[in-house]
């Protein structure tokens, strides 16, 4: 009995770690409408500052706590609100999620550059004598743990009271529901919004200084790992109910502890269930909870008065301009192709192959995000499914590599379609979270199976051969990749312009209106999901074949998040955007940051000499780029392309007829309510 009680108490103690994050994440959503996936890295910022001041610089606990939690954390909230989220109050939840995702990628790198924090070991908590131990029913708890328990409970209770019994709490909720309607009732939305962000950031800061005593190291990875586990409790609370988030998180901790205590440690069940429990719970809650299926997300009811999204810039060109731009495009690609195939060294050819492969994978994001309007965090996983399947079938079963690439794509498509059936009932953020749970489950359980990834040594993935044509050389393999990219690109364009694309467009505009004219939203989305997964699978198989192995790190879920960031930053709605994203993804770390940008800087001014810019810059660059998604859902490059084409069109018009130029093509994005930050 004492053993059970001890496990229960230990479980409650660890559950409070989740609870602190779950309550913070729920608070952020409740008061801002943002599913703040960057909450963990906000916590990391405060944790790093506290560590720097208290452990490294020797400040006392109180002044370090005041600076890190009471000053810096709310300030971060003010900056995020005033600089970003204030302009997204009426934006669709997906736009806000993407913005938070961008912050998730960018903030840790900014903090690391600032503090040069790498191995922040031996952190201390916020109470003196944090290691002093108390024994309760056979469980040993130290002061640091008790401080987490007490503060997590205090935060949960305090916030519950705030929202139930104070005018501020009600105003906070009103501003999230509809800032414009709240304004009509005399509420200062801006001030309330700022207060909300300060409050949620304060909780993040508190978590930031408390949790390192559990993880023993201050690193963004630890916060994010714990946060991801806490998401299950947040979803259980339907993102808004703080008491349920709190108790759900504690329940998760208790279940985890009981499993630890009573499952045989060397059993297959233990080795698979323990690492994956939070994701399994998350996925099951998402799929099985009937309340989630019928739940409406926090969206401004007035958002539909906003104008529709801009059409692709290419669709707004005159015939002459279309011919002209296409001619320039063909000439440019011809010149690049000539250089790569006839003068490029192995490095240039290799990078071009990677661009082609990633462009294929990124086309999958175009389908799911650009066309279907959903965000999937599992694209890297689908690429991995294709990669592992192709490698296993070709190296173990001796099948034709080309055939295995196709089969890899089909397997990924089938799994994507199967995942879509239950997940698409959720829609929006919940769908995204379901894909995330699936990706994490795949990373933590499936990939470890030797018949999937090969175990310690990755599975060999040979290059294809078709009859007498051998693609062993890089240049011939590049040609194959380009052909497949063209095929995939054409398929995506055909789908976009065909029935499915129009259905998706209609569903994206208004699901109710689409259903009323006989469109089956589920069917259209499942097709998009399966197609997207299949394309990613083909790209993943090519990636494995290019490298010679199916390396699991290439299909890591975290990498998949960055893929989403880079594609939505540059252009999620066109094949061209996918190619541009691939160019950026490959060339930024390989050429732009180490060579081209320093060369440019050194040649335009005489004062500052730069050798090579840190590769981390790319995460900051693209992470911050993603925060423009709400303003430019068509992507930054696509938006600028629209402007450029409009200018050129104006010049053509003026030249031809002496008419004034046509107006700029850009119009405000649908439902964003975007002002000018």
């Amino acid at each position: 009995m004492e053993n059970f009680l001890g496990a229960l108490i230990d479980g409650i103690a660890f559950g409070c770690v989740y609870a602190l994050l779950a309550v913070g994440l729920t608070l952020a959503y409740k008061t801002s409408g943002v599913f703040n996936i960057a909450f963990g890295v906000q916590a990391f910022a405060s944790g790093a500052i506290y560590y720097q001041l208290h452990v490294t610089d020797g400040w006392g606990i109180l002044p370090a706590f005041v600076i890190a939690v009471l000053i810096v954390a709310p300030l971060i909230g003010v900056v995020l609100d005033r600089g970003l989220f204030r302009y997204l109050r009426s934006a669709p939840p997906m736009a806000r999620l993407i913005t938070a995702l961008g912050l998730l990628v960018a903030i840790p790198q900014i903090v690391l550059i600032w503090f040069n924090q790498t191995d922040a070991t031996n952190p201390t908590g916020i109470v003196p004598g944090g290691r002093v131990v108390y024994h309760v029913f056979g469980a040993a708890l130290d002061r640091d743990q008790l401080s987490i328990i007490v503060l997590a409970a205090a935060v949960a209770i305090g916030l519950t009271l705030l929202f139930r019994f104070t005018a501020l709490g009600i105003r906070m909720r009103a501003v999230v529901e509809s800032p414009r309607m709240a304004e009509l009732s005399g509420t200062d939305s801006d001030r309330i919004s700022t207060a909300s962000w300060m409050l949620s950031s304060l909780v993040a800061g508190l978590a930031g200084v408390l949790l390192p005593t559990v993880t023993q190291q201050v690193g963004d990875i630890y916060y994010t790992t714990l946060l991801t586990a806490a998401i299950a409790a947040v979803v259980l609370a339907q993102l808004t109910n703080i008491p349920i988030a709190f108790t759900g998180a504690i329940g998760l901790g208790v279940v985890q502890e009981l499993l630890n205590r009573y499952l045989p440690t060397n059993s297959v069940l233990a080795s698979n269930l323990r690492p994956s429990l939070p994701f399994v719970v998350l996925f099951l809650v998402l799929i099985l909870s009937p309340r989630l299926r019928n739940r409406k997300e926090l969206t401004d009811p007035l958002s539909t008065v906003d104008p529709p999204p801009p059409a692709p810039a290419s669709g707004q060109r005159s015939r002459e301009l279309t011919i002209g731009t296409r001619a320039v495009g063909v000439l440019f690609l011809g010149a690049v192709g000539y250089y790569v195939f006839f003068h490029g060294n192995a490095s240039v050819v290799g990078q071009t192959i990677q661009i082609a492969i990633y462009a294929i994978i990124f086309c999958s994001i175009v389908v799911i995000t650009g066309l279907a309007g959903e965000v999937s965090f599992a694209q890297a996983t689908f690429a991995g499914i294709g990669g592992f399947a192709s490698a296993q079938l070709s190296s173990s079963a001796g099948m034709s590599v080309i055939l295995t690439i196709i089969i890899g794509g089909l397997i990924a498509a089938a799994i994507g379609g199967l995942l879509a059936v239950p997940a698409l009932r959720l829609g929006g953020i919940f769908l995204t979270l379901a894909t995330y749970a699936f990706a994490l489950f795949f990373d933590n359980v499936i990939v470890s199976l030797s018949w999937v990834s090969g175990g310690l040594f990755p599975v060999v993935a040979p290059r294809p051969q078709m009859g007498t044509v051998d693609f062993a050389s890089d240049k011939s393999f590049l040609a194959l990749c380009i052909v497949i990219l063209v095929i995939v690109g054409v398929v995506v364009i055909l789908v976009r312009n065909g029935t499915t694309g129009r259905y998706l467009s209609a569903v994206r505009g208004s699901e109710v209106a689409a259903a009323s004219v006989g469109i089956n939203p589920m069917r259209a989305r499942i097709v998009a999901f399966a197609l997207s997964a299949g394309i990613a699978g083909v790209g993943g198989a090519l990636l494995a074949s290019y490298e010679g192995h199916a390396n699991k790190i290439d299909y890591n879920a975290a990498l998949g998040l960055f893929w989403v960031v880079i594609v939505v930053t540059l252009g999620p709605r066109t094949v061209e955007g996918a190619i541009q994203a691939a160019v950026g993804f490959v060339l930024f770390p390989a050429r732009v940051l180490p060579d081209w940008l320093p060369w440019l800087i050194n040649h335009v001014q005489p004062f500052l000499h730069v050798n090579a810019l840190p590769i981390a810059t790319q995460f900051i660059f693209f992470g911050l780029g993603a925060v423009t998604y709400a303003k430019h859902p068509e992507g930054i490059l696509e938006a600028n392309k629209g402007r450029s084409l409009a200018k050129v069109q104006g010049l053509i018009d003026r030249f031809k007829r002496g008419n004034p130029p046509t107006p700029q093509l850009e119009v405000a994005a649908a439902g964003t309510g975007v002002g000018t930050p």
Partner: protein
Amino acid sequence: MWCDDYDVSVSIRTIADELDVTPGGFMGARTKVTRTKVSGFATLCFAIVLVASACGNSKSQNQTTDTTGNAGPAATAAPAADLTKFVAGRGPGVDDNKKEIRVAAITTKTNPIGGKYAEYVDGMQAYFDKINAAGGIYGRKLVIVKNRDDTIGLQNNQQVQQSLADDNAFATFVATLQFTGADLLAKAKQPTFTWNINPEMATPKGGPSHANIFGSLGALCFSCGGHYLPWLAKQNNFTKIGILAYSKATSASSGLCADGTRRSYEKFAPTAKVVFFDDSLPFSADIVTDVTRMKQAGVQFINTCMDTNEVTKLAREMKKQGLNAVQQLPNAYDHEAMAASGGVFEGNFISPLYVPWEVTPQSPATQEYLAYTSAHNVKTVELTQDGWIMAAMFLDALKLAGPEFTKQKVIDALNTQKGESPGGMIVPIDWTRQHNDPTNNVAVRSKLECASIMKIVGGKFVPQYSEPGKPWSCFDADPNAPIPVQPQHLSFAPGGVG
């Protein structure tokens, strides 16, 4: 001397184990982790390198000092006079105009999912500076022409490819989280020197030869186990053993390491029993229950296949729950971190992968490393020492190849060495066979496993079970050999000191 039983001096080293993914540890120690970041889930892999080194077969001319075990031509065999001889036209990577031997480095520096090894290059640079200050070699300076950051995933492959095409380097140094570019370097026959935490360094069974890739360890065997831990348990009368590792999903090598360790006890330690075994831990695990269960099982000695951060957490939880067991630390030879650890590691054992600095008398090579790095403000941690050691191995190879060196000659020369150990700082490696994956091939394993055993006493590292000037405790690595009463105590340093 033990080594005198043989005709030739052969030293071999066996690594019992290693881990898998990222940087971990106090010094980013010898762990390799795959870690997922943003998601928060990720996989992390950390590894342990437990070790054995081996020595072997040396017939020394001086029985009291020559225990280097070198069978092939000695690494320093090239006549000193030849080292200044300039011969033009040495081929790619050697600039006759600038009189430079060009070297490229590829390290994981800004990995957002964990694992940063930039300090490796600091150690390389320090060693090259020392050599260059003394006039270089063959009338040329050693120059790092490019220090690339391979970040994550495919970037290693990409950076390797780009380096081979653009850097015009004679040799490449690699310290990376995931060595996806190993095949490319092998195919290009580029002399390559690595911080070996990557199974990809080895020539896989039936795979392309990686005979051009050299590490401070031979090819890794995660699951081989060995005699060292059972022997240590016996010495300390530990009869109840606990083993902890990450789940195979978190780190494949960690799970293999745990399996190998358990088999070692079953085979070599009849009096010790593994009473607690957990190879299901996720990254950043909750280990409260593990400690509770180990306490209930009466565990006395704990072996882990995890990164330093996790063993720190484990140590703290043990202290909290009052579990008075001893840990064998996989990689925590970091003086700063140990000083800051608050005494939670008191009484634990650790076996660094090179001669510990506390050994007395120190070998000339260790003294030189410590003196030079101290004088030039280079951090003295495992990564810089490994960079220093591998730079020294490169220099050994150049000396062996002679003034008319080429890439292939450097590779071939080093591959004749049966006991390569720059300055005797590491257990000698038999490069005639230790390129190959030893997991299921006993023939390519080293003949001895060696450990330089330290105990943490009063927050300091104190050498154990060694003799003055002979820091290594070595066992016969034959998996069928019985556990000895006492290991051989050896030195691999020229002159047999330290």
